[in-house]
């Protein structure tokens, strides 16, 4: 497995260079995992992208580098200590930094000769591919999808020149990911919404959720999705609820701050039993926090947000396949139970790209509202039923009246203050959780059948924890296993209780300061975690870091 870094200031073209490079590596067969670390600014600062590639599935980043493309001196200074012994620093000759690992090329001068200073990035990509023993086979095919026709030829020339400027240093490895896709978590989620039949998306721009809105807007016309930028997050969620009530599958997305504005309407979805999917792409809080960085600190908030009590479902997205399939499932659950379903993603997963097998659209199935009123008498929108779910008609689609009310209401949706109706309606709504709990997905178990330490995690720490288990068991076979939650509220407890019974210790690994999963587990199962690995500096924990910290911090 190899790992390279591209670093520089915002606006220096790190994004495009990384996107072209990761695609070329994938075409060559590598499994790729790319993470983006950037500051909340449009120009300047220090940003970097890590591209890790190898012959097996990769779901976490690493800070140990085989090489870097340094677009400025600062990158060299900050990251040179992460380089392995035979690592390289590829940079322009004009950089004043000195280091024995440097490979300086006159990229800027070469680009001038080629005719456009902006092709310097392509020179660097060509050079890196040669260093890793790659061929030039996919240069043209990949460049064609990234650069305009008018600059296509000079970019091919630039890539070729960079390729010729260095000698191979690393052995090329044969991977089987050439037919996989490479895409970001947000992109996978956007595809999930299209596959699920999303018709209406309303949101207010907020990092790191804006990417999802932009991806949907890009496909809106082809997919038949109205993407509306709302005046605020309160409007965004109320619009989504209004659209859903009127029969268009709807979703809203935001980050923690916007979600804070949405909480009253979350309760409206629960009370009026209107299907709704809400995406929270988490970033560090409280309030503005670290806008472009990552955290898993909204769990305790979203499972209890909004006054009163109503059924809801929270699904944490663990990896790119989840981002697609669980998004589809969220729409299905929202429709079948007529509840709000919250998808918890985060900046790390949303922005990270990975190689994934093409999504299987034949597995897609999303429930539809009722087509007609069946049964005797007038249609009652909130009819008492055995499982608490009443057939949902769409207004204007039949000769029946459809009502929704945020006040407590009777079966016909009319306001009531009857104590008896109140209890019946609360029971009806909460009863939906009984059936829902039967179809919860248990957490994924990773590791050997016999173990001493059981790590517990959720969401995007899936990849890092999986890698940590591998590292730890290589050192001490048969000691470590992990359970990683996707469905997280209601909390599935069967596998947890069974697996915890054979563990000597439980350790929660979370990207927050208070151990929110551990708290939820304690509340629902009376199981206590004996230690925690917590991180809340805004940077995702890596597999190596989890393994290191376990050895150092946890007495076993």
């Amino acid at each position: 497995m190899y790992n390279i870094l591209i670093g520089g200031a915002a606006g220096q073209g790190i994004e495009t260079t990384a996107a072209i490079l990761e695609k070329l590596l994938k075409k060559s067969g590598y499994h790729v995992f790319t993470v983006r670390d950037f500051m909340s600014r449009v120009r300047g600062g220090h940003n970097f992208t890590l591209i890790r590639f190898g012959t097996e599935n990769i779901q976490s980043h690493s800070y140990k580098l085989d090489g870097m493309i340094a677009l400025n001196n600062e990158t060299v200074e900050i990251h040179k200590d992460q380089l392995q012994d035979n690592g390289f620093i590829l940079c322009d000759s004009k950089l004043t930094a000195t280091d024995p690992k440097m490979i300086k090329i006159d990229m800027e001068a070469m680009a001038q000769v080629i005719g456009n200073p902006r092709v310097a990035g392509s020179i660097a990509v060509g050079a890196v591919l040669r260093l890793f023993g790659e061929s030039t086979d996919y240069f043209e095919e990949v460049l064609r999808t990234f650069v305009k026709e008018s600059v296509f030829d000079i970019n091919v020339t630039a890539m070729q020149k960079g390729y010729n400027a260095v000698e191979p240093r690393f052995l090329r490895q044969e991977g089987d990911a050439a037919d996989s896709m490479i895409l970001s978590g947000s992109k996978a989620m956007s595809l999930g919404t299209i596959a699920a039949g999303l018709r209406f998306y309303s949101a207010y721009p907020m990092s790191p959720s804006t990417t999802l809105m932009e991806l949907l807007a890009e496909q809106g016309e082809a997919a038949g999705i109205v993407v509306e930028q709302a005046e605020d997050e309160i409007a965004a969620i109320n619009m989504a609820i209004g659209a859903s009530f009127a029969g268009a599958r709807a979703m809203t997305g935001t980050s923690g701050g916007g979600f804070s504005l949405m909480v009253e309407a979350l309760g409206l979805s629960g009370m009026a039993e209107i299907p709704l999917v809400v995406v929270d792409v988490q970033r560090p809080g409280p309030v503005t926090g670290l806008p472009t960085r990552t955290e898993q600190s909204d769990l305790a908030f979203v499972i209890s947000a909004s006054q009163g009590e109503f059924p809801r479902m929270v699904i944490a997205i663990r990896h790119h396949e989840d981002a697609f399939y669980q998004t589809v499932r969220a729409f299905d659950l929202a429709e079948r139970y007529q509840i709000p379903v919250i998808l918890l993603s985060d900046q790390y997963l949303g922005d990270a790209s990975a190689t994934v097998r093409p999504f299987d659209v034949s597995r897609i199935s999303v429930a539809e509202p009722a087509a007609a009123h069946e049964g005797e008498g007038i249609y009652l929108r909130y009819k008492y039923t055995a499982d608490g779910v009443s057939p949902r008609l769409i207004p204007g689609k039949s000769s029946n009246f459809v009502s929704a009310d945020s006040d407590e209401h009777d079966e016909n949706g009319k306001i009531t203050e009857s104590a008896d109706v109140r209890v019946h309606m609360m029971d009806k709504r909460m009863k939906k959780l009984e059936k829902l709990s039967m179809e919860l997905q248990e957490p994924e178990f990773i590791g050997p059948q016999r173990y001493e330490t059981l790590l517990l995690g959720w969401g995007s720490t899936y990849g890092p924890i999986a890698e940590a288990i591998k590292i730890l068991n290589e050192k001490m076979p048969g000691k470590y296993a992990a359970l990683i939650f996707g469905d997280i509220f209601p909390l599935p407890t069967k596998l947890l209780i069974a697996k915890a019974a054979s563990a000597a210790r439980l350790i929660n690994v979370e990207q927050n300061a208070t151990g929110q999963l551990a708290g939820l587990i304690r509340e629902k199962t009376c199981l206590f975690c004996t230690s925690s690995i917590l991180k809340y500096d805004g940077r995702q924990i890596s597999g190596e870091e989890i393994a290191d910290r376990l050895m150092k911090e946890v007495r076993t």
Partner: protein
Amino acid sequence: MSKTSFTTYEPAWCPGCGNFGILECLKTALEELGRDPYEVLMVAGIGQAAKTPQYISANSFCGLHGRGLPAAVAAKIANVNLTVIAETGEGDSYGEGGNHFIHNIRRNVDITHFVHDNQIYGLTKGQASPTSIEGLVTPVQTTGNINTPFNPPLMAIASGAGFVARGFSGNKAHLISIMKQAIEFNGYALVDILQPCVSFNKINTYAYYSKRVYEIDSTYDPANKLAAFEKALEFGDRIPIGVIYREPKPTFHEKNTVLKSGEPLLDRKTNLDLVAKICDELK
């Protein structure tokens, strides 16, 4: 139930409340326009006026205080065949929902917005509303309201609304006519409806309004925007009622690239081929 009847349930308003007159006018307007009750969606927030959807036979959505408009416009976006009427109070529309008021004028979705404006908060028992006159003494504004009253028609015209009118619950024939024009207008239409609150507003009473309101006559040109600004500013000893401004303009549905084709959004089919095509491009 006949197809054109908008039969009501028993309203829980105070006897003598202006809401009764407005409700009656609304039913008459819808019936005279021949609207199918099953294709009418009444949307409201929370408040005394916001109970209106409870008392009319139509589809209804009573959401959150101040948030009726976002739900109403999105319902219309979802299904263009619905007649969507947002009917709620001035606290709901201009106070809690002020931001939505401004931006949905800009959006220009073809919905009708009837605002019951009694210049006081009724549901919460008598505090100042956005349109309360200066000096109004209430249990909260104990020494009199010191804030400048909000001018809804002026704000709506300035924000780009295509249909702005004022009505009075005490002049039913006139109100019915305005309501019909507003419902038929292609685009966002605002009707600010003056009404007395018999329980809490002892100043802006039935007699107060009756003495001041006058019908805008046929010589007035509602297409003249500058004249409309002047008309909207007239609020004191004389209060004009009628259509203050009217300007046909492209609606959200006519401009939005997805909706333009006319096919109701909720009837669109899921494009799984598109997913497969994008997956292929990502290889």
